[in-house]
């Protein structure tokens, strides 16, 4: 019996995973999120190239700029991913699913060029990105596609997915997104792969989705609840979620702007606040469930365009955690041990 993880270059022993970022996008086009700006002065900005003078506008108009949402240049992805490697990183989980223009061949090239392990994804993003045939497909049909991506290769590329998700969920949950969630459960139970969830922007969204997954027979230790930083701030709800046994993913490190253009009623939290939630979860006994990421992918988050890039957690956050008294053992749990356990599939 061996413990393996499927990367874009083939299966590896899960002990080779090392330091892992659990939620990134190396090559993606999130045009599904695009909202044409309404204010006249913003309409001009929406079509400008990204320069140092427009960086600030972009940070407050994240989804109002098509070019910002599309980073599909493998050479740039290689340079940016190298910053993670040079800080000591080993593995990146690329959560780019159908609806965000996944490019498994591109990921394989990045993996070869950088020496990083890259794990590709199968799944569906939020309903506005669904293609027109999705409503006619059943849960079984969707599950079959996922299983095929995991066991044979994504869209006939021969490159196998190693994770299911991010499965995109809105609030309220769309019927087709519910189908995708159930399909992911079927695929997970069939293959042993983990499920990564992009919950809707509401404090109750994670609970709703976890219940659907558990009711469908998913093992909680195969579920990763993502984007907790912008979803749950109520400690009771966070504790309730933690007690299900799922993985708790703080994956927006580096994104320190509190005004949230995609949901102005929500105030986003800072890195310091993320660390405070993590310290509380550790205190409450949930260290073995915490995983980290930057969800870097949009141009404004990459160093080429003024952002923090894939190396931010290793360069800034973990040293800061150490300064704050988080133990070396706990940091290793979040960076290495938990991802390894979450992603491993036991095979004969």
């Amino acid at each position: 019996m061996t413990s393996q993880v499927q990367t874009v270059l083939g299966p590896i022993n899960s002990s080779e995973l090392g330091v892992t970022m659990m939620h990134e996008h190396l090559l993606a086009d999130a045009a599904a999120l695009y909202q044409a700006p309404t204010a006249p002065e913003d309409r001009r900005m929406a079509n400008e190239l990204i320069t140092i003078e427009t960086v600030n506008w972009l940070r407050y108009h994240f989804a109002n700029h098509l070019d910002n949402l599309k980073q599909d240049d493998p050479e740039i992805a290689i340079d940016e991913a190298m910053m993670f490697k040079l800080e000591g990183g080993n593995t990146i989980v690329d959560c780019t699913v159908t609806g965000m223009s996944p490019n498994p061949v591109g990921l394989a090239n990045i993996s070869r060029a950088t020496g990083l392990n890259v794990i590709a994804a199968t799944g569906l993003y939020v309903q506005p990105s669904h293609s027109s045939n999705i409503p006619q497909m059943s849960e079984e049909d969707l599950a079959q596609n996922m299983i095929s991506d995991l066991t044979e290769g994504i869209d006939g590329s021969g490159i196998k997915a190693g994770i299911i998700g991010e499965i995109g969920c809105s609030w309220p949950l769309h019927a087709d997104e519910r189908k995708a969630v159930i399909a992911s459960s079927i695929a997970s139970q069939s293959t042993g792969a983990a499920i990564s969830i992009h919950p809707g922007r509401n404090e109750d969204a994670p609970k709703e989705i976890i219940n659907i997954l558990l009711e469908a027979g998913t093992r909680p230790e195969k579920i990763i609840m993502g984007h907790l930083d912008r979803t749950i701030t109520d400690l009771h709800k966070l504790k309730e979620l933690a007690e299900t046994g799922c993985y708790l993913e703080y994956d927006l490190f580096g994104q320190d702007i509190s005004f949230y253009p995609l949901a102005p009623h929500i105030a986003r939290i800072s890195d310091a606040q993320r660390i405070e939630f993590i310290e509380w979860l550790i205190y409450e006994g949930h260290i073995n469930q915490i995983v980290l990421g930057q969800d870097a992918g949009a141009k404004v988050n990459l160093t080429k365009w003024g952002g923090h890039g894939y190396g931010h957690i290793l360069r800034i956050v973990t040293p800061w955690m150490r300064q704050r008294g988080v133990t070396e053992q706990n940091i290793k749990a979040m960076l290495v041990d938990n991802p390894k356990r979450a992603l491993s599939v036991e095979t004969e």
Partner: protein
Amino acid sequence: MTSSSYIQTVLGPISPAEAGVTMPHEHLLSDVTCLYVEPTTASDRFMSRQPITIDNLWWLRYHYNNHLDNLRLDDERVAIEEALLYGQLGGQTIVDATTIGESPDPLGLARISRATGLNIVAATGYYVAPSHPPNVNDMTVEEITRKLVSDITTGIDGTGIRAGIMGELGCSWPLDPNERKVLTAAAIAQQETNVAISIHPGRNEEAPKEIIDILLEAGASPEKIIMGHIERTIFEMDDLERIASYGCYIEWDLFGQELSYYSLAPHISRPTDAQRLDQIAALTKKGYTNKILVSHDIGGKTHLVKYGGHGYGHILRVIVPWMYQRGFTEKTVRAILIDNPTTVLAI
């Protein structure tokens, strides 16, 4: 306020009613290379010598004071462009709180005022002790008081341009004896001139109370004292309320600076704009709406829009609409942007 009260700008006195929307703590022209800390590693020293470009912002944002050029707001044309962005959003007045030690430039401010049509208030006073010119150590409280009063009534350093505020008066933690001298002198000068005192407290939760006690003991009026940089100094509501209960103004002047990792003091986590608004909301609920001030303290190039930052217009562009979304009334927003700053600045 009497009918003859005025706000002193670099181009002369204006009535408080003319001042309009006012940012009470900014820097248009300043040089705070006194804060520069030379990096120790070779690679950081390399980065610290690079020009500011879009692809090294990742380093700069976490090394604010490890880069000399970042600490200089010295290009007048850039200051004009950036100030115009504030004006275009409805801003009318800016207080330039650049004091001795930060290279104040009253004539430069006058040129910027003429170029932009904005009212600009210039400052007198001294920044933190490490930036003091050598003579401060030998000056008595009386001599410092004379200098402050002269800057206010006759003009700063022979320019004829009169200061309209005393501060930011720089305080370290612990408080330096020369900084204490400046505080005492400012309190005495205030009794003579009725000019407001604006404080840059040391980076410790006890600092604001210590400074206010010194000022009040030396005869300053609490309603002419502005406690600045509150969001990186005091974190408990109780302590905030205590300062407000003295009658002092409380200034959240780091809006737009949301990087929680605070390279100038790594043991402090800086709050986000949302957290600033939460605190302000809580203080208004306690009845202290008329003591609240907001500003950006633009102090380095990376704060400017030209260099990837948020600039002088951030509060008007992003924060004010967000305040309305969060349920602040127009009356409260008006108080914070207009009534409070013009009241404290009125002489």
